[in-house]
């Protein structure tokens, strides 16, 4: 096996690693923020909001992330020439960079999957706990923040861990819109050196480690959840 390309590309791999981590954590964060209202809308509140939320989840879960990514990046990009004024605006540097599109597309996808999971999670919290909170005079927001959300999260942590791993594994797709993470750098090595297996195995190894760390972190979180067996 040929590994002499590693020193040459080490710096690029570090850059790519940083981009991977950034893309992953930002997508997870924004996606989760969005998932809470999406999940909530399906459980409580006006019916039409719930329907919109469900439709959103169905749309984004039923279509490949790759197509969503391309639709956002190239689809929006095709509108730009129609608005020359955009080039002067201060948003222009963000609009032409590829990274924001990756974050938006991934966040929307994460929100759809986690929103679906959170809907089930919110439903699974025993009603009497919520009623107790209301009886104490908690406002709707306090109820959500102190009781409903934490309890829902506790029930559903393993599933969220799975979704997080899936999100991490989606990061390579961003290389198709010029966002080069670890996988992207690996494919650059492949094109430059025509070596197929070594760069791919290296990338696989890095992701293996990252997944392991992620699973460990979530496992730590799960252990902190009080469970009934701790009586």
């Amino acid at each position, binding site marked *: 096996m040929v590994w002499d390309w590693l020193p040459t590309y080490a710096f690029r791999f570090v850059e790519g690693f940083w981009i991977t981590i950034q893309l992953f954590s930002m997508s997870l964060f924004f996606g989760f923020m969005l998932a809470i209202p999406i999940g909530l809308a399906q459980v409580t509140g006006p019916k039409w909001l719930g329907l919109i939320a469900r439709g959103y989840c169905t749309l984004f879960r039923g279509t490949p992330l790759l197509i969503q990514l391309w639709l956002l990046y190239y689809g929006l*990009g095709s509108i730009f*020439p129609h608005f020359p004024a955009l080039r002067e605006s201060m948003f*222009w540097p963000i609009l*032409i960079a590829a990274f924001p599109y990756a974050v938006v597309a991934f966040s929307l996808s994460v929100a759809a999957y986690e929103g679906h999971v959170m809907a089930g999670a919110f439903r699974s919290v025993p009603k009497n706990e919520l009623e107790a909170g209301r009886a104490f005079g908690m406002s709707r927001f306090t109820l959500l923040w102190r009781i409903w959300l934490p309890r829902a999260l506790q029930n559903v942590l393993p599933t969220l861990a799975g979704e997080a791993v899936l999100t991490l594994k989606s990061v390579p797709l961003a290389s198709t819109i010029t966002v080069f993470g670890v996988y992207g750098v690996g494919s650059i090595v*492949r*094109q430059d050196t025509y070596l*197929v297996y070594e760069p791919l195995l290296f990338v696989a190894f890095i992701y293996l480690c990252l997944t392991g760390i992620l699973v460990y972190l979530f496992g730590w979180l799960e252990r902190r959840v009080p469970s009934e067996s701790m009586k």
Partner: protein
Amino acid sequence: MNLLKSLIASAVVAAGLGTSASAEIKLGLDSSNYEPFYSRSASGEWTGWEIEIGEAICAAMNEECEWTAIAWDGIIPALTAKKIDAIFGSMSITEERKKTINFSEKYYNTPAALIGPKNMEITSAADLVGKNIGVQVSSTHENYVNANFADGATVKIYQDFNEHNFDLVAGRVDVVVADSLALAPFLESADGAGFEVKMILNDDVIFGIGVGAGIRKEDTELLAKVNAAIAQIRADGTYDEISAKYFDFDIYGGE
């Protein structure tokens, strides 16, 4: 362990059932469109100058040929892994590539060009500082840009030719470096109206002497046949006949 063996054997057989013992030559090209050399028509066939030349070469070799699309950044590994038998997708002959594969004699040569917006002044590398340059992955154009313009300019790498043209129109890149002939249809189209050729780029080392068919190092017999076929279609006028349909100048690029 008997069960394991029979499972493996049946899996291999099943894989074989979906295949054929190849009697034909698989020609590999980029899975995206590269007009006017090759592109997918609306009815699903491959059309273009390079397709016709390829078919002519196969006819001269008395072989059946099959066109296979491969993503460009994996086309040389696909050749060495025997997924295709020859690369016929406008691949430039370079010393770097020659380390891994052999090339036939060239069958055309056109220079690379840098195109940009009409209202942007670009005459040298200095004008490109702070600009975004779009190139296709794993291409000689990418190598040239990295070698000459990468200081101070941002290089954006795209999976295929059409994507960087698209981003040029959208404004995400300021200039694009690609083959001058492939860029011509774009510049003539409505989208390309605001752009023009800024620089013609020449570098014999990076761009090589022209485009040839990529062939595995060990397939010396196939290499000889292809070279003979290329010589034949150039001699008997087929090459000129096909080229006249697409271009009104000599695409071969001199001796």
